């Protein structure tokens, strides 16, 4: 079995938002929608203040609450662990959005453009199927599918690796198969201390945060 996951090394992330921009470019999301987000978390009191940058988005949970509540079966889970949305089935009820503890789902009811009026590039890439339905990060699912056809390896070959991972200038993000002991992500997780967010909710998320070496 395959389980694709993503890892974010919190020691490396510098909050540059390049992954956010790459995601937007790759997936043509509207201005108010960020499938890949990097939180800028500041805590403590002066002078003892710490800042953490936390990439987040859909965690492609093994027990996705969004899928369980979805009344239409539009949200589905594949054998490789990816959680996707069938835009043609979704009714935009928003139940998945309130069920997701990662705030990863978006519903937009009207076309939005970066500078008000649509630019030519935006008009060319607008997808009416995404209007008034739930959308979210798909781990660049089309690239993962292309890997099978071309004999390439997601997380290793950049053509079939999520756009955010490819773009990360700090090497903080990694992608691969958790079930493959030789994969880059398995090796990373074997040698580091990590956690998954809101794990206590029983979602079994597929997004690991590395915070120290072992």
């Amino acid at each position: 079995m395959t389980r694709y996951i993503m890892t974010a090394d919190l020691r490396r992330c510098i909050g540059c938002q390049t992954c956010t921009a790459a995601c937007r470019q790759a997936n043509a999301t509207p201005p108010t929608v960020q499938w890949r987000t990097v939180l800028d978390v500041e805590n403590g009191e002066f002078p003892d203040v710490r800042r953490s940058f936390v990439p987040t988005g859909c965690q492609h949970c093994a027990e996705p609450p969004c899928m369980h509540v979805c009344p239409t079966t539009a949200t589905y889970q594949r054998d490789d662990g990816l959680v996707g949305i069938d835009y043609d089935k979704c009714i935009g009820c928003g139940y998945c959005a309130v069920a997701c503890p990662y705030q990863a789902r978006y519903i937009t009811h009207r076309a939005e453009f970066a500078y008000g009026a649509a630019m030519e590039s935006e008009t060319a890439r607008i997808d009416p199927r995404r209007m008034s339905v739930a959308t979210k990060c798909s781990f660049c699912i089309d690239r993962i599918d292309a890997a099978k056809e071309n004999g390439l390896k997601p997380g290793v070959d950049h053509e079939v690796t999520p756009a955010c991972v490819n773009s990360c200038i700090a090497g903080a993000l990694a992608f691969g198969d958790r079930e493959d002991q030789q994969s880059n992500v398995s090796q990373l997780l074997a040698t580091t201390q990590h956690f998954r967010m809101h794990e206590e909710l029983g979602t079994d998320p597929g997004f690991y945060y590395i915070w120290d070496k072992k």
Partner: protein
Amino acid sequence: MRATPWHQTNWDARAAGNFIGGGSGAGLLLCAGLIQFFEPLPGYRGAVLAALLLIALGLLCVLAEIGRPLRSINVLRHPQTSWMTREAMVAPLLFAAAAAAAWSGTALPVALAGLLGASYLYCQARMLQASKGIPAWRHPKTIPLMLTTGVVEGAALTALACALAGGSPNLLAWPLLAALLTRRIAWKSYVEALEKDGAPQLALAALARLRGPLENFGQTLPELLLLVAMVFATEHSWPVVVAAAVAVASGWLLKFSLVTRAAYNQGFALPVLPIRGQGEAQPGIRPGWNKIVAKD
């Protein structure tokens, strides 16, 4: 994007309308059916029609909220795990049984309509509780709260229907009082459990703002009025009618507030703060919450 919880924007007053109309209508079918099953209830037919109207209005609210109403039939595709699908599946059965009950008033359709009303109410309670992203909804105590709220509204509306049909609503004084006391316990238990188990501070603040109006105006006032009606065995029906109206209004306020005021999302948390450059890892943070969940 911020790390602290913010109020969800996907379900607004229209979603609250479904819980208000659906919960009240289903509760009314259940309570009126329970009485009609044992002895004829004045105004039973009117009560059933009012229940159907309330449920239909709730469903219309949902239709007004969803992004793709023309595909709404797809809501029936996932009965395996989705409480929304189950609610949608119960609805047509409920309408058919209730129409038969209103028409005939005989035991079997009355019982069936009551049971389906209870099922519809249960589906709504489970639907809200399955929303894992909203701490104020997902707590297990949400289920008894939603159920008792529906029963209070049902008992209260039954009393009002009875009064409107020329009957005496006073025979409903003690069931309504019992329902109100149960809702009081469910509400108290829900709020205390939420505070103890952890929730976004803003959600707790929203519930705290609701506490005064709900407990004083929505609970104590109708309870006192019902006690007056029972203790003095008055023939006047106004104390029960006023208590019933207040009980319904307070139930609606509770559900409206739960959906549109206390529905702060999970936010984000770090069970441990990473080492960045130098120093040690630090204890975790959960911005905007009343409790921190630290990594073992």
